């Protein structure tokens, strides 16, 4: 068995992995990238639509154009990488076992590991859609791969279940290819994806968006022949008698993404409710020296945000190696970040007490859309941060960047709560206090 020693092993060479590896390399680290696909770039390669890079490059790029800049930089920096290489195990003492065709089994001993495996799409089974199980049902990303990478069109008439971003982008893509997209069906009362995709991908092409409806039966024994949709009440229960049949030969599912957490679990890292690992403000998981960034940590809306997060992970992994990697597991003095009213989840899960004065990045999603809200961070009942927003929706991740002055947070603080409150409610609270 071939054995290697590296400072930092990066698992996954999508936008997260490349970004982290580039930053770690710039910090003088000996980095190795492990990628299971046969090329660098990850899922961004199949996202041939535009809208990438507005934040980082101030340019409107396609996915492949965006990721190529990172691939080029990684190559210029001569960062070693292994393609077609699948990590099958990570041990708790940071030994990685991986396989590929040419080298067989590899054992890689790393001082630090960056997890950047991305996410996967929810499937039909995970949301329990009833009906037949014919060919012609694809996840939106799978259809995107068929069309944009393999060069095949998987059907002629489509219904898209779920209004996630990839689903809406595929609605437009398939329309361009001459397919008919009969409807995008969403169980919620609002789209799950970005508003800009609703406008540019559905409204601009007159693709009907059917809200408060779900698929209640798939028809067709061999190949999809149609679907029955039904309207749902507030509890997402089917309303009797509201069935409607739509003829189609294909169904795309765009019903959500979940972090790819297999290796994270194998490494022994604790997971949080969103499916990604629990991390502190340095993006370090509960395993000493194992970091996570990108969609494996939390599903992002924009690749630019992934790249920014990846950069922080790369930098922090380098700092870890310079300062702590030989010291063994240390006892951290951590403050727990708790999601409160109307907060679905928040990352990071913990902040190191000693880092309170550094610039901290919080990412969160609301549970329900709302208008005229205030984002607050509270230590018990004392508000230590607040910012007003005119509206919030679950599909748009909220970023909070802040530093805390030492006098603001009490020395025995163990918990900070982050909440999204209506502005009006806050005024009431003020009066009471």
């Amino acid at each position: 068995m071939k054995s290697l020693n590296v400072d930092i092993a990066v698992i996954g060479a999508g936008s997260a992995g490349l970004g982290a590896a580039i930053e770690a390399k710039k910090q003088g680290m000996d980095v190795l990238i492990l990628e299971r696909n046969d090329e660098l770039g990850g899922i961004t390669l199949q996202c041939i639509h535009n809208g990438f890079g507005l934040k980082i490059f101030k340019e409107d790029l396609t996915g492949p154009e965006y990721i190529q800049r990172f691939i080029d930089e990684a190559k210029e920096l001569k960062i070693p990488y292994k393609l077609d290489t699948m990590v099958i195990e990570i041990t708790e003492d940071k030994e990685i076992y991986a396989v590929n065709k040419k080298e067989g089994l590899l054992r890689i001993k790393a001082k630090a590991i960056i997890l950047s495996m991305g996410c996967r799409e929810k499937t039909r089974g995970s949301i329990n859609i009833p009906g037949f199980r014919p060919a012609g049902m694809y996840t939106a990303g799978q259809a995107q791969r068929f069309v944009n990478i393999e060069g095949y069109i998987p059907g002629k008439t489509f219904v898209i279940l779920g209004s996630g971003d990839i689903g809406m982008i595929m609605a437009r893509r398939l329309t361009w290819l001459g397919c008919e997209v009969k409807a995008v069906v969403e169980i919620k009362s609002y789209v799950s994806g970005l508003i800009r995709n609703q406008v540019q991908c559905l409204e601009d092409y007159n693709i009907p968006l059917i809200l408060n409806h779900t698929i209640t039966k798939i028809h067709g024994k061999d190949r999809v022949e149609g679907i029955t949709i039904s309207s749902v009440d507030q509890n997402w229960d089917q309303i009797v008698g509201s069935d409607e049949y739509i003829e189609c030969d294909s169904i795309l599912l765009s019903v959500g993404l979940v972090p790819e957490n297999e290796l994270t679990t194998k490494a022994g890292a604790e997971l949080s409710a969103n499916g990604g690992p629990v991390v502190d403000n340095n993006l370090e998981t509960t395993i000493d020296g194992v970091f996570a960034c990108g969609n494996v940590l939390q599903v992002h809306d924009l690749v630019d945000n992934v790249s920014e997060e990846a950069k922080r992970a790369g930098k922090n992994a380098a700092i870890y190696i310079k300062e702590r990697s030989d010291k063994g597991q240390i006892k951290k003095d951590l403050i727990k970040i708790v999601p409160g009213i109307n907060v679905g989840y928040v990352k990071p899960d913990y902040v190191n007490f000693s880092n309170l004065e550094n610039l901290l990045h919080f990412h969160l999603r609301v549970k329900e859309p709302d208008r005229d809200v205030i984002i607050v961070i509270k230590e018990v009942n004392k508000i230590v941060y607040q910012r007003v927003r005119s509206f919030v929706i679950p599909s748009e991740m909220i970023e909070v960047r802040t530093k805390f002055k030492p006098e603001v947070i009490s020395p025995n603080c163990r918990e900070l709560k982050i909440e999204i409150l209506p502005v009006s409610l806050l005024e009431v609270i003020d009066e009471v206090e």
Partner: protein
Amino acid sequence: MDYDVIIIGGGITGCCIARTLSRYDLKICLLEKEADIASGTTKANSGIIHAGYAADRKYLKRKFCIHGNKLFDLAHKELNFPFKRTGTLVVALEERQIKDLVYKRNYGTEDGVPGLEIIIDKNRIKRMEPQLTDKVIAVLHAPSGGIVSPYELTFALAENAHMNGVEFFREHEVIGINKIVAGFEIETKPKKFTSRIVINASGLFAAEVSRMAGADTFEIYPRRGEYILFDKDIIHLNKVLFPMPTRLSKGILASPTIHGHVFIGPNADNILDIEDISTTTRGLKEIISGGVMLVPNLPLNTAIRNFAGLRAVSNTMDFIIEATEMVGFVNVAGILSPGLTSTFAIAEEVVRILIEDLGEELKEKEKYNPYRPKPEHLSDFTKMKLNQKIKENQAWGRIICRCETIPEAEIVDAIHRPVGATTVDGVKFRCRAGMGRCQGGFCMPRVMEILSRELDIPYKEVTKRGKGSHYLVNKVLCIKLTEDSKESEEVAEK
């Protein structure tokens, strides 16, 4: 005559009969209407090897089940299919149900079911199955019960039958049977076959096929059962858990699968359409409420698939294994639960019918080989073994299915084994590529690519499960307009 024996139907019953008869000096073939064997009732089966206490004494199936259960140990050694005697528990949630457990134990023990025991010590029950509901009052433990992969067992039977000379014709739907001198002529869509003996093991279609041969003696009704399968490593069950049975079925059970998942189901729904394997909102709700009665901690949000299968219920409510008035035409029908458990006993009965009722003089082949080599799985390898395998064959180092860690080598093997996979589902059921939590989201295009290459068929022609179940419709055409223009235009091929 082309054949001595033709078996109609490539489910577990047909394949087990084929393998059992392949021991003898007979020219045999098996006809299957679908693109693969194990495509009907066999595929959506609970995969449980029953101990045999359940069915009423008046039924043939009780005798076959108890005997069939015992035949599994030898078969497992010979055929190398995934099988484990986990033990089963019938769970009483009310005092009054204990009476029924006692009845089952006493009669079961009398009829030769080994080790039946009623347990009322809650601590002991919880040690046996920590996930079982706290409301349990007593259980009937049957240590000889177990779990098996029904389709992998069927593939093993077919492969071994093939090794011993049985020919398999898939996509050969029988459309007519004519009595001819000393045998039958069987019409299928592609061609005609003749045979001295015909064994009808066509499951849901058995009554129809029997009528084709002129033996109109029974009816088959479809009874649907729906299931939900959960992701692995979330919850673990040690034992197969049954509620107290109802008149129609053994009730909604919760069970481990041989590959470490957990499933709940099936319900029992008498339907009209013999091909309606759709799941329903009502059915899925029903099995969830049944499942949580036994296992309150079911991880309902980690479901990875729901599916349904049809039981072939005969009007006698029992197995029909008999020679008919059409001499040489044998029916093996109405094989519902515990049909899987009974399978080897049913095949033995067919041998008896051939010898005693049809007067066949069955001679054992000189070169009969009962052993089917175990397919190699990466998951069974040590690290050193894996490294060595990749050195020998690089395809072991290319992981195609990421959820189940299935390398290219296993997929190629699934295609090239005897009676191998020709479809994406064929690959999935033979080597588990696409069975995991992403349900083929990542690997399906790659499995298609490997099927296309190994079978030398165009990528576009690769199907999910045969005719009509194609995945792709058109090719995306890229036309470069001019030399200096960077734009390209895509047109869908008409």
